[in-house]
């Protein structure tokens, strides 16, 4: 038993030493509760892009995400005793992420509709262009033939 406790004490001491020896690691990582929200926000923006949203439409959302990133960094850099302020900042980050997700979802809906409409318009334009092309082709040949006949009939024989 004493062996086990000695082993545990040694392990704990090594762990504490390792933690203390570790270099200052300044990464403004999102805390574990925010990580799924970050992924949801990115996935929503990516869905909007896949649905046909332009860079101009997604740029404001990405700017908001960068704002959330700055707030997260600010919260991470606060001294450990400022828990209230940190929680308030994390709450703001979460709120921004939720807003971005909602706006991106709305953008996905409008982009999908717009892309669908554009596709229909393009394909219908193709059919119209085919009809117009056919008529131009047929009438063009007919008019040319009539012109040639007319010219032939208008010919006069002149004595040399």
């Amino acid at each position, binding site marked *: 038993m004493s062996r086990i406790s000695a082993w545990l004490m040694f392990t704990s001491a090594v762990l504490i030493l390792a933690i203390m*020896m*570790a*270099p*200052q*690691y*300044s*990464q*403004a*990582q999102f805390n574990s509760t925010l*990580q*799924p929200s*970050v*992924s*949801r926000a*990115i*996935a929503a*923006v*990516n869905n909007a*892009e*896949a649905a046909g949203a332009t*860079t101009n439409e*997604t*740029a404001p*959302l*990405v700017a908001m*995400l*960068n704002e959330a*990133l700055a707030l997260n*960094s600010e919260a991470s850099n606060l001294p450990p005793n400022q828990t209230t302020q940190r929680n308030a900042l994390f709450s703001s980050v979460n709120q921004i992420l939720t807003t971005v997700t909602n706006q991106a979802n709305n953008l996905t809906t409008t982009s999908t509709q717009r892309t669908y409409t*554009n*596709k229909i318009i*393009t*394909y219908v*334009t*193709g*059919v119209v*262009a*085919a*009809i117009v*092309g*056919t008529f131009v*082709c*047929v*009438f063009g040949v*007919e008019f040319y033939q009539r012109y040639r006949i007319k010219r032939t009939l208008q010919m006069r024989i002149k004595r040399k």
Partner: protein
Amino acid sequence: MKFKSKQNKRTIIAIFIAFIVIAETAAYLATTPRPQEQFFQFYVVGANRLAANYYPQNNPNLRISSLVSWYVGVTNSMGNAQLVEIRLKLGNETTTTPNDTSDTPSSAPAIVAFDRFMIDNETWEFPLAWSITNATVTGGFTHILTTRINNETYEVSNWSAINGYDFRVILELWVWQTNTNAFEYGWSGNGETRTAWLEIWFNMTNPGIISPP
């Protein structure tokens, strides 16, 4: 227009079909997004935004408080928005570099990380000004104790080199993965995993401090 014969009708239908095939093919090509290569560009340049003069007076043998100014840049060509992170690591001659075959990062600990959400085709470039602010020389080893990066001081440990030769700064590109909710080294695109990292070597053979007896 009167269709004079069955032959004429057939000709017109054939022309229409030919036109519709051409027009609808054009419509399909116009509305279908082309597959594009997905990648990031990652670079570090010197103070003049050139791949030269990375160190003051172009001398990679640094002293205490020698200010090194670089610009680090990333271009997102993934075709969609991405959250990227650049991790700055400090190493020496024996530090393992990132492995491009197994796609594993360097084993050196990260000192600082820079994060940013990027839209497609965006280039994010930021200044990286750093200096060594404290170092000791003991037993033929130069130990770097503190470094200042973009006006923030960071304590470092286990960063030493024999006679101050072959220190290095390693920069790695990490990308947020939505399926794991975490940053991962490299990125997946076009069915393969790719990584990007940079390293720049320097020496500190004469830090400008008096070595202890």
